[in-house]
């Protein structure tokens, strides 16, 4: 079994992290378009993995059956399935793999829910270390402003309602996300995460991101698939 560490597969793995409303998904799609136009074999690894694990997670969430430990473990199960059946084979095949959220999301969420930080980090030891993890840093107020217009209502676990922080979903969401940000910030030096200022114009952020990615692909000419 592989332990967390630098992988030796020909492919590359770039992941984006940040709270909802940080704009990380927008940036990842722009990166995807650019890599494609540059001729790289680039693939999104989606969160929704095997239908089986997904169904259990859905049911558990719908019925509010999940506790901090089962929330943590069922997501780790789901992640393991993606790792074993999607990410590793893609990296072996030499793809540039893009992930919207990775193990750092789990570290933040699970620890806010009261799980032991060391235990959770060990739990994800089987994960491949990303070539570059990006964190989109944004003040909570800015993210909230972006979100309020973009959605109707907050889901139970997404807003951390299971923590009993507030009866009001929006208020609970705010309090929960503030704690998530705290956990993210602790990880920056720990995991050598590249921080992007997510309040900057979209183009500026994208230019920064491309520069970093480019430097990692310099020695990876064979990842290009198009003529």
């Amino acid at each position: 079994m592989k332990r967390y560490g630098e992988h030796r597969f020909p492919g590359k793995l770039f992941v984006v992290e940040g709270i909802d409303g940080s704009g990380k998904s927008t940036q990842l799609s722009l990166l995807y378009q650019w890599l494609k136009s540059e001729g790289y074999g680039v693939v999104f690894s989606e969160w929704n993995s095997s239908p089986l694990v997904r169904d259990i997670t859905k049911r558990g969430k719908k019925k509010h059956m999940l506790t901090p430990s089962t929330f943590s473990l069922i997501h780790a199960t789901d992640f393991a399935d993606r790792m074993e059946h999607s990410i590793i084979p893609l990296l072996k095949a030499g793809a540039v793999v893009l992930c919207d959220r990775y193990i750092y999301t789990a570290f933040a969420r699970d620890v806010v829910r009261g799980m032991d930080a060391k235990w959770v980090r060990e739990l994800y030891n089987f994960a491949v270390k990303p070539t570059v993890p990006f964190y989109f840093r944004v003040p909570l107020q800015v993210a909230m402003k972006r979100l309020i217009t973009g959605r109707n209502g907050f889901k139970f676990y997404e807003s951390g309602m299971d923590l009993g922080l507030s009866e009001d979903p929006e208020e609970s969401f705010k309090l929960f996300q503030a704690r998530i940000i705290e956990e993210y910030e602790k990880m920056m030096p720990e995991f050598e995460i590249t921080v992007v200022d997510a309040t900057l114009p979209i183009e500026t952020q994208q230019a920064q991101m491309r520069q970093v990615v480019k430097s990692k692909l310099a020695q990876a000419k064979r990842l290009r698939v198009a003529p």
Partner: protein
Amino acid sequence: MRETYGAVLPEISLTDLTGSLIVVEGTDGVGRSTQIDLLKPWLEQQGRAVLDTGITRSELAGKGIKQAKEGHTLGRITLTLFYATDFADRLENEIVPALRAGFVVLTDRYIYSLIARAMVRGIDSAWIHNVYSFALKPDAVFYLRIGVDDLVPRVVFSRGFDYWESGMDLHTSEDMFESFRKYQSSLLQQFDVLAQEYNFEVIDASASARTVFEQLRSGIARVLSGEPREPLFAVQSSDAPADEIHARKGVDTPVENELEQDVLK
């Protein structure tokens, strides 16, 4: 106060878990469920409330695991974590509430079987030990030990070979009998390592069901009365007459002798 093997879950307060947690471990087909079916009424006749539980029976993940095994589609790490999810769900929703209510929790397997299975499948030892470090330390683990030669006829002449019990997912042999022997042998080796590590009380499961039951019963009676463990209990000869064992153990009572007749007839 009860202890865990390391991590403590936020949902579980370790104080006031006044019940007893007793584990019956052993490989597939060794007779664990037969013994638990005998132990439960025996304990209930003494007026103790009993919860019997086993692995892959949780409300959250039990069904999913069964489906996954039917399709054989999950990777090794994924399946291992699925089992861990199931275990956590049962720990929080069944075992802990029962212990808090003062029950005797009699569990058919515990983390040890799950660890052994994972190790045989090449999962990293330190990793799997960490995953299950949130488990509560039981009051006793009774390990029904058997050699693979004694195990084979029991399994073959009762229910036949099963895909997973034969470790067919490991692809060591096309032949189910060969695969069963290899897989169960390595599983038994892992159990022996765990027996040392976790201080199991070993019971020779090649003996008759009655003899095994008598040993389990006297072991459990000792645990419930709070007496310390006798170091040589593990290697007690299994073919000695029951009365002799009881005389030596000194834990039997006339009342229990009567119950024994009822249960074993």
